[in-house]
């Protein structure tokens, strides 16, 4: 299976979607922006030519999406208005163009050297994601000190900062990317973004390999939940069901729909048999995680 992004007009995109399903692929996410539509999807490698033909016919653009099907937290010490535009915006957008679903997390007490800390809510929220990207600042002393924030994070972490330091075990560190005020406009800036994307890709690949042993992929769970719980279509969220590497995030309240989600039929068993279903720390959202994945 190969993940791709379809970028084209709204006209005819339904035919394209049908083709993806006919070939045995899945649509991971679909976003409309006025007359444009972006579809993240996955198709078998041998049918790539047919998908390309159809895209050409619809005059759409196809791109590789190495991060498709992953949910990534971009964590910044602050998102105050005085520092706009933030470099986190550019990083999150770049990861999005690689197919990831990114969530920006601005810490409430993340600023300073000695003062920086994570609240319990922030820690739990970041731990719900597949990979967390922490963006630190310019000074060696501060970046080294702030690495203590990563101790409580149980998901793989990419950290960035300006100085070249040796990061703690298990952390991918991208140097030369400190606090940049304004847009990434210099020549070398795109390379920095690419470095971050590469680091995230490495971690996503590692995690993906762990979950390959589960025979039911998360995007299959997604299509079954969509078919069997019609209320999901009434959700106003841009991505009512987010595909993660280790399961799903469903934007429906657990109290009301928890049992319904557990009873979704997957092949000849129930979703509750192979997955843990539990409430997210974000109100009104439910998490589905493969049993035995943590």
């Amino acid at each position, binding site marked *: 299976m190969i993940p791709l992004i379809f970028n084209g007009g709204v006209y005819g995109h339904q035919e394209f979607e049908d083709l993806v399903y006919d070939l045995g692929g899945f649509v991971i996410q679909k976003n409309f922006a006025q007359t444009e539509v972006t579809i993240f999807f996955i198709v078998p490698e041998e049918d790539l030519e047919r998908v390309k033909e159809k895209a050409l016919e619809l005059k759409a653009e196809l791109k590789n999406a190495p991060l498709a099907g992953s949910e990534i937290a971009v964590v910044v*010490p602050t998102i105050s208005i*005085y*520092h706009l535009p933030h470099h986190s915006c550019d990083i999150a957008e770049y990861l999005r163009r690689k197919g990831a679903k990114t969530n920006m997390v601005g810490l409430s007490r993340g*600023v300073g050297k000695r003062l920086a800390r994570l609240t319990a809510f922030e820690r739990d929220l970041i731990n719900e994601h597949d990979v967390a990207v922490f963006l630190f600042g310019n*000074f*060696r002393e501060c970046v080294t000190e702030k690495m203590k924030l990563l101790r409580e994070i149980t998901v793989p972490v990419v950290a960035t900062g300006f100085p070249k330091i040796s990061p703690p075990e298990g952390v991918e560190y991208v140097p030369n990317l400190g606090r940049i005020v304004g847009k990434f406009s210099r020549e070398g800036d795109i390379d920095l973004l690419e470095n971050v994307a590469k680091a995230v890709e490495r971690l996503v690949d590692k995690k993906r390999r762990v979950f390959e042993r589960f025979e039911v992929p998360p995007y299959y769970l997604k299509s079954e939940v969509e078919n069997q719980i019609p209320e999901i279509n009434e959700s106003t969220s841009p991505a009512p069901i987010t595909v993660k590497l280790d399961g799903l995030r469903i934007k429906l309240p657990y109290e009301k729909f928890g049992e319904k989600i557990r009873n979704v039929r997957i092949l000849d068993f129930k979703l509750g048999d192979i997955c843990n279903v539990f409430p997210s720390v974000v109100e009104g959202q439910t998490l589905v995680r493969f049993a035995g994945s943590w």
Partner: protein
Amino acid sequence: MRLVVESPDEEGRIAYERTINTVLSESTIKGFIKRLKVFADPKEPVFILIIQFARGGGVLKFSEVATLKFVREGAIVVCENDKFMPEVLRILWEKFGSEKVEQLSRYEIMVKGEIGEDILNTIIYDPEKELMVGLMDLILRIVPEGFRIRKYIRKEGLMALIASEDPIKNEWVEKALKMMEGADDTSNL
């Protein structure tokens, strides 16, 4: 305008120079600043910012930015500088009401009424006022956000800011005062 950044951390110094340069280039008050000196020591931790202001031009009055052409119904105000035009129009509206003021073209305003001394003496542009609005914004953008404890020292044509996350020590204030004295001397910068 000159910028000097000092820090024991060489890498941090280079990165911070870029940050300040970007902030300054986007600031509305860069014309009012003559020199900017920064000392940052994350070990202490302390951040000192010294700003030396350039001598701004004086205030501009209505009569200096606009000329009058008298016609039968009143007068035509001609202001050939786009920067001051909105302010000129605002003052005329305030005095005569919008029904008696008509903008004929990009530079001309027709006024049905008599323009007296009081209008001619109104201040259109005050650099000091503009500086104060932009200065706080500039400082908040440059200073590290975590350094919430701040002390401002203002002298003739100079301003110093000491910021830290711990209570401000006397030695930092002394250092700032020393830097302020040095700021006047060109050889130190």
